[in-house]
């Protein structure tokens, strides 16, 4: 089943990948290994999950202002998400990090549309046209 979700473009581009969804914010500096793209915070529900080539759907980034460099580092080391969606607010850390890393970034218009997603779902984020196409499994 294919489902379309509307979203607002923040950084343009198109990205394809499996969905990685969390309802918890992320501190990109301390909770994600920049060299592997794997979430490394034992207290986070994505612990051990790789963000590489994913469509990351999360509320917003928290904490360190240096998190913007951490997003850029993920891209530099080839382990960044293919696209990112913020469900609560697009914070400045995520927006600026995606802007220089050329990672498509969008904000959902209704956050609750994305609840209950399977992490195995493949998705295409077309930030230019403000749409997330999900191939639900």
């Amino acid at each position, binding site marked *: 089943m294919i489902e379309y979700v509307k979203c607002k473009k923040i*950084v343009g581009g198109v990205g394809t990948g499996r969905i990685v969804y969390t309802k918890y*914010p992320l501190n990109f500096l301390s909770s994600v290994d*920049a060299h592997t793209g794997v979430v490394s915070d034992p207290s986070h529900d994505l612990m051990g999950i790789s963000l590489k080539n994913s469509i990351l759907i999360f509320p917003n980034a928290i904490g360190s*202002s240096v998190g*913007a*460099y951490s997003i850029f*580092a993920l891209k530099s080391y080839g382990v960044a998400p293919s696209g990112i969606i913020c469900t609560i607010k697009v914070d*400045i850390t995520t927006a600026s990090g995606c802007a220089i890393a050329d990672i498509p970034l969008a904000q959902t218009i209704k956050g609750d549309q994305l609840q209950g997603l399977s992490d195995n779902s493949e998705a295409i984020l077309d930030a230019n046209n403000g749409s997330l196409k999900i191939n639900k499994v």
Partner: protein
Amino acid sequence: MHLSKQDEKALDGEFGSSLSVAYRILLAIGEATEAEKLVSIKWAHISGVNYNTIGDAGLKFLTEFSKDARVSVQTTLNPMGYDKHKKSIISDEFQNKQTSIVKSYMKMGILPSFSCVPYEIFDMPRKGTHVSFAESSAAIMANSMYGLLTNKESALSALASAITGKAPYSELHNEELRRPTAQVGVDTPLSNELDYGLLGYFAGNAISNSCVSLGCHGKDLNIMKAKSLSAALGTAGSCGMFTQEETNSEKIGFGKKEKDTVRDELNTTDNGDLIALGSPQLGINELELISKSVVGKKFSKPCMIFCPRAIFNEAFKLGIAQQIENAGGNLICDACTCLTPLITSDEYDGIITNSTKGSYYFNKFNRIPVCLKDLKTILKEHLK
């Protein structure tokens, strides 16, 4: 977001690739925060200096970016990894890479202040001045204690504002939006800086609003407590300002139970083999407080105390620095407790600190357990 014709040309690369990158960043933030226009700023404070945090990717970016980027307003710099005037365990490779990062920033015209507490060492502009502060604790202090207008900027957005002299006019830049839309009601005594840190950490976790009302103001909130509160609030969440202004939104309670829960999360050992003070870096008042406690005593454990070099120089003139160092306190400039490579799990099994922010990063980034206590208790227990 409206851009002037000159802004559009800069975005298109007519004035160089770095300025184009800076405008690309501002445009993304403008979209994210629903800004209508850009506003001129007077001061930018930049984070992303410590090689330990930005790594090779950041180093490479800054080397390229600094080729044709120059700041257009006063711009100050966050701490780097270590104190180059002191012997340390830092490898030559780290030192060379750190030096390269600093050179890139200085090439852009940025003042090498190496401080996360710019409000302690620079003259503050008048209230209502637009600035762009990365370093979450400094942004929150600027908004909440000094009446400056800044969003909780990222390392890259503040850099973009330093180059362009502009920031998106949104959220906390807009006087109308500097009103609290969430509130935390304090139902437990806040007796020292650690209690304020625990409150900040709780509030940061509980809300995602730009401005929060905290029922903890008044004569009691001195700079030391406000620093602890701001650092914890910035670490735990995305909020950029606290205020005492009341709001009609539902009150989230912070009582003894909540305070204990936060402490239990961050306090992960009963003891430590290093005392680490200064996240944020200490100001002259905090060094004075320590100097009064050390008279005739010595630290019973190694003790690192982080402060800006400008504060150290002032403390040296006053004789305070010598008193602390004679007691065994190691005063370290240009770096900060948080994320310094001077403190690693290879060297230390546990850290004693009063910093909630420091505790978060020791636990999550350095992977060293933390014994969290207020400053007076630390001094009482570890000065013999």
